[in-house]
């Protein structure tokens, strides 16, 4: 019972839960995916992102909630009845079938006439630019080519939804960038709807229309890449988005959402992203790019430099304060390890978060 592409407007996860096992459990995940959208599920390993994908694919049964494709409930269907396309982490190509047979597998299972299979497979082969390789076995292909076969196999069945489970994690850095662009190109050309699981925030930011950040089986934030990058809702999301410096301090005063923190005697000002109150403990989250060498003063932190790395246009250093805070900063000049310097941030580049609730970690 393949679901025709045209009938579909949205896929809805309604309080989906999966209870078994402490790890990879999901708790009340609700999410609506609109047609032609590219959604990235982002989070550290064990956060439940692959579990979510497997529940959508039908490879894992859900223990609570429902999954809807428009008005049709799909979580009760077997995986072979859902008609979704999936790209697996290690590709899961059938080792005994050649490229053409691998791509045509889904159509063959649907009883598509041979001539039509041939035509569609040819189309898919040219879409993923694999013409001339169709009679090779998966073992004879490079990692990037296997990846292309896996994508072609998933899209040739014209699925309403394409599921991708960390598809780039087995490729080397250069190929990863190349295939990332390919995946987005194919998504756009086909007008596909894609759910993409990754633990790499760069991938999620560059590919997705919307990103869903998961942690411990719970949705932490949903938003466009820009929203997540600039306005993470929680400290752990900020951490994931590259706010590598997390300075714990006491709230001195609050004014119009602007918070002044005392961090080891230095006064750090920032924008509150969560509710904090004067006198409580809070965190100032700062990207390493926004922390630079400055001059002594009550707004800068006195630190001792630990390491210095050359990164092309500038240096990235690590340092620690007298109180034991570890910091990452950038610098235009090399600083000798052991040197005492002062680090400064711009006020509007600091986000302030409440201290995380215990038990969340």
């Amino acid at each position: 019972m393949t679901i025709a592409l045209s009938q579909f407007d949205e896929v809805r996860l309604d309080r989906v839960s999966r209870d078994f096992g402490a790890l990879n459990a999901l708790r009340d995940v609700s999410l609506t995916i609109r047609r032609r959208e590219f959604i990235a599920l982002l989070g550290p390993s064990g956060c439940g992102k692959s579990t979510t994908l497997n529940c959508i694919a039908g490879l894992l049964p859900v223990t609570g909630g429902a999954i809807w494709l428009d008005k049709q409930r799909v979580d009760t269907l077997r995986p072979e009845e859902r008609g979704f396309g999936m790209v697996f982490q290690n590709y899961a190509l059938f080792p005994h079938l050649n490229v053409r047979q691998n791509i045509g597998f889904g159509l063959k299972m649907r009883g598509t006439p041979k001539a039509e299979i041939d035509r569609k497979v040819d189309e898919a082969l040219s879409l993923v630019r694999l013409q001339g390789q169709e009679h090779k076995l998966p073992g004879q292909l490079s990692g990037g080519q296997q990846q292309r076969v896996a994508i072609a196999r998933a899209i040739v069945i014209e699925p309403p939804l394409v599921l991708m489970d960390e598809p780039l994690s087995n490729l080397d850095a250069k190929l990863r960038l190349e295939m990332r662009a390919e995946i987005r190109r194919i998504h756009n050309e086909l007008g596909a709807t894609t759910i993409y699981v990754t633990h790499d925030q760069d991938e999620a930011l560059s590919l997705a229309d919307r990103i869903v950040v998961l942690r411990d089986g719970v949705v932490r934030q949903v938003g466009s890449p820009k929203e997540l990058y600039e306005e993470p809702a929680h400290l752990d999301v900020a951490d994931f988005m590259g706010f590598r410096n997390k300075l714990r301090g006491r709230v001195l005063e609050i004014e119009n959402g602007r918070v002044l923190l005392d961090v080891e005697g230095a006064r750090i000002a920032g924008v509150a992203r969560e509710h904090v109150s004067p006198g409580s403990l809070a965190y100032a989250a700062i990207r390493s790019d926004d922390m630079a060498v400055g001059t002594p003063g009550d707004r800068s932190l006195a630190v001792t430099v630990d390491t210095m790395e050359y990164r092309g246009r500038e240096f990235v250093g690590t340092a620690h304060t007298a109180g034991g805070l570890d910091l990452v900063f950038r610098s235009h000049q090399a600083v000798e390890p052991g040197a005492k310097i002062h680090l400064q941030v711009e006020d509007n580049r600091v986000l302030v978060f409440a201290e995380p609730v215990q038990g969340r970690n």
Partner: protein
Amino acid sequence: MIRDTTLGAKLWAAAIWAVVAFFVLNLLAMIATVVTSSFATRWLGTWLPAGWTTRWYDSAWSEFQLGDVLLVTFQVVGAVVLISGVLGVTAAYALARRDFPGKKLLVLLFLLPLLIPPITFGIPLATVLYQTGLAGTFWGVVAANLVPTVPFVILVMIPFIEQIDPKIEAAARVFGANTFKLFIHVLLPLLLPGILAALLLVLVRTIAMFELTFLVAGPTSQTLVVALYYAVFAAGVRAVQSIDAMAVIYMVTTLVWLVIALRFVNPTQIVTRAKQQPAH
């Protein structure tokens, strides 16, 4: 690998190869003795027989009714291979793909008939089969031979199935294969080399399985190896050459299948059932 080149190490290596050579030489000479004798007209007190003949094969064939015995042997072996294949592969699939309470106990249960020598469990097994009236019949012999072969297939197939990525099965499901299509289009082609290897080894083992067949076979259900035992046991009744001719026929039936089996498995696997190691 590290090789020593000192004199002591060389002497040690030479001594080891001498032992190996001595063993292999005696083994081959023993086999050659049987073959030579089966073609000998008269062979007493000399290095080689007085003359050569093939007539012992004719006499062995009729004296020991080898036509019937071979037919029974292949029927028994065929039944054992088929049944242990079906029972063994299905059980191995479950054991390779699922973790459930009591699995370790079950694996131990399947391991025991391979570790305990057949004569030890064969006597109680024969007792039960005689009580139920199965002993002496064709199916009694098949049942007794299945006791070690079903676990053998299970233990050969478990690692083989485990090395097939379960994601491949998941992929087949996602792309629309139901259980039957999954089996026909994906599992069977992938498992075929393993099944073939396991069943060929079962075949060779069953032809050579003496103890269990001996304990439960009747006059019309004995296999070649049991017939050979009775012939050697009653040596003196028949000419030695005739018995040796039968032994050669037995050797050939076994070795033909061994040679075929060795195209698919490493010789070490016949003993250890270990995963095949890449040759270095």
